[in-house]
């Protein structure tokens, strides 16, 4: 008979992790500095790296763009209405900032920063929060000298004491209050997304159904026809490469400008053509000079955005492989309208 092994008995499955494998994945940094690599970075270098790699979402001064996180400011607001929680006002440990920037940033290009760049960026974030002066150099040796203002602003979960009265085996069942008045209504704020088509299934008869199906088919078939002149394999490869761009750009049906402009019809379009998008001064100037996004111009831009156009807001290092550039342009061409 087969017997279930005792609790601590081993199955002999898996294999030992190699030291270089552990080194590659075990990157976390604890509040006491455990896990920090050797390195350093100063505020000025940090400002440059931040402008290039972070500012597109977080703003030149870490003040945040649109709905993207603000990294600076907010000190003294935690007991106010809508507190502003930033590295300076809220985060208890500097290790958290270092660890997060190192492993998860920049958004869409994580794990691309060198340790020195991370030290520099974190130094600049501290500077933006008025926590260090502009001479400051952050390194694995100075790391523990920095204490964040809200380090003592946290307590352990105390619900079982502070909310002890919520444990109540005999809750009221009758005559629990004298009167009940409506004090607030969601309809007044009216921030709920529109419920498109909620009634449609019941209301639409068979005739309308058929018409709707036709409309859907047309909408689906259209881009396929456009793409027919393109190499479908190349377009598919481009779709994969486009993942690098998706953090900021949308393309296709219903696409909108986000951090970056909408890219429908970009190939062959004049520069700066997305209505309502706030382009950089450099891009606006290029548009006024008549720049058109031919395949060749796009290819040059995508290879090294910052070299091609000094001052562009596009904080993307560039596509290294020509084949990726070709593919992504083919993919964008498949959305020519």
């Amino acid at each position, binding site marked *: 008979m087969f017997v279930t092994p005792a609790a*601590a008995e081993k*199955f002999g499955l898996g294999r030992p992790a190699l030291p270089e494998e552990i080194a590659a*994945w075990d990157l976390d940094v604890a509040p006491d500095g455990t896990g920090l690599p050797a390195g350093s970075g100063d505020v000025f270098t940090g400002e440059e790296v931040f402008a290039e790699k972070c500012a597109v979402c977080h703003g030149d001064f870490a003040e945040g763009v649109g709905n993207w996180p603000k990294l600076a400011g907010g000190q003294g607001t935690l007991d106010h209405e809508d507190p502003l929680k930033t590295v300076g006002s809220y985060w208890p440990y500097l290790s958290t900032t270092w660890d997060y920037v190192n492993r998860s940033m920049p958004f869409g290009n994580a794990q691309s920063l060198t340790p020195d760049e991370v030290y520099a960026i974190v130094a600049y974030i501290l500077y933006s929060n008025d926590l260090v002066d502009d001479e400051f150099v952050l390194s694995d040796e100075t790391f523990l000298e920095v204490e964040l203002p809200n380090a003592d602003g946290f*307590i352990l979960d105390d619900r079982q004491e502070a909310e002890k009265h919520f444990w109540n085996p005999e809750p009221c069942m009758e005559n629990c209050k004298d009167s009940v008045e409506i004090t607030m209504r*969601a*309809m007044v704020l009216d921030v709920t997304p529109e419920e498109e088509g909620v009634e449609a299934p019941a209301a639409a008869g068979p005739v309308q159904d058929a018409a709707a199906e036709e409309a859907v088919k047309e909408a689906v078939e259209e881009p396929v026809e456009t793409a027919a002149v393109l190499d479908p394999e190349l377009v598919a490869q481009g779709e994969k490469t486009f993942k690098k761009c998706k953090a900021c750009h949308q393309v296709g049906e219903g696409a909108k400008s986000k951090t970056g402009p909408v890219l429908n019809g970009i190939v062959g379009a004049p520069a700066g053509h997305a209505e309502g998008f706030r382009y950089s001064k450099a891009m606006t100037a290029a548009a006024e000079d008549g720049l058109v996004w031919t395949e060749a111009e796009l290819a040059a831009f995508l290879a090294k955005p910052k070299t091609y156009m000094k001052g562009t807001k596009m904080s993307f290092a560039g596509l290294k492989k020509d084949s990726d550039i070709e593919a992504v342009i083919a993919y964008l061409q498949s959305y020519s309208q």
Partner: protein
Amino acid sequence: APDPLITEVQDWASGLGEGVDATPYGLPIKYESDVVRRNVEWLTADTISSINFTPIHALDGTITPQGCAFERHHSGAIELRKEDYRLMINGLVGTPLVFTYEDLERFPRENRVYFCECAANSGMEWAGAQLNGAQFTHGMIHNMEYSGVSLRTLLEEAGVKPEGKWVYVEGADASSNGRSIPLEKAMDDVLVAFKANGEALRKEHGYPVRLVVPGWEGNMWIKWLRRVEVMDQPVESREETSKYTDTLANGISRKWTWEMDAKSVVTSPSPQAPIKHGAGPLVITGLAWSGRGAVTGVDVSLDGGKTWTEARLAAPGTDKALTRFYLDINWDGSEMLLQSRAKDATGYVQPTKAQLREVRGLNSIYHNNAIQTWWVKANGEAENVEVS
């Protein structure tokens, strides 16, 4: 007049339907196209680091189909093949190990049903009634049957050293979304799951392997789980310091608020599920759950909390899983202020909004488990309101 749907021969009664292979992996019929996840665009900067909501107003029973179970990503839903999957156990262990997906399938397996609720569920309602629909107020929740290996088994395979007090768990996606979990919980009921509701995890739920941390906030249920490190201290990662901490009125914040307190909501009638049939027999139904154990009862009030009636549980509550409740009434067609109140095995009773705000203020963001009120009007339409 006689109903032509009965008296006349309909197309579907004379012609033929689709053959067996028309949809090799089925989708809901088109008439259910409104039962979908929805997001709230203004909540986040983009849809990649964002959340959407389960259409709980349109579901019944307790198991959430994966296809409409809410999604939360921090750097988007990645595509990771089983063949490329690796799970590392390292840190304070006898032997650091690497497992493949096939290795995981060879450990003894468990099946468990648990709810997963985002700590921010109902978070938009702290300052007042805001979103008009159960999907939006309470839809950051799903409930699935998971198949997988207990984390304890994997930790014992590597051999936890006595100085190990915490595990740090992280995902393979760009966010990594790492969290620290006390070793005691890790050795208790945490699962390393690879199937949900009988099928492989969907991409958006962490295919091929995710962590299941029963009763604790959804952010800890690491998707695309790639590493478990045994440590002597917590990492204090971004997700457990700057986020998922609860700021009180005095500016001090609670941390390590892992458990999801008992909570319930009436899913129908509700703003997205109005009463269309007028007065007469009415099924009032909803969901209840607790991260501290099983739901033992649910009370329903039709008058904004003056009087309560014990609802019928569709089945006895089970540990850290959704419970379905019903109250069958003969509606007289007059207005109702509909509420539900969950009770759990520890004796906890779901609090009112006023009770919660008294302790926590308005800036907590997370862990809002207050009683919800729907104002059902005489015409059957419902609205999200607050009452005195």
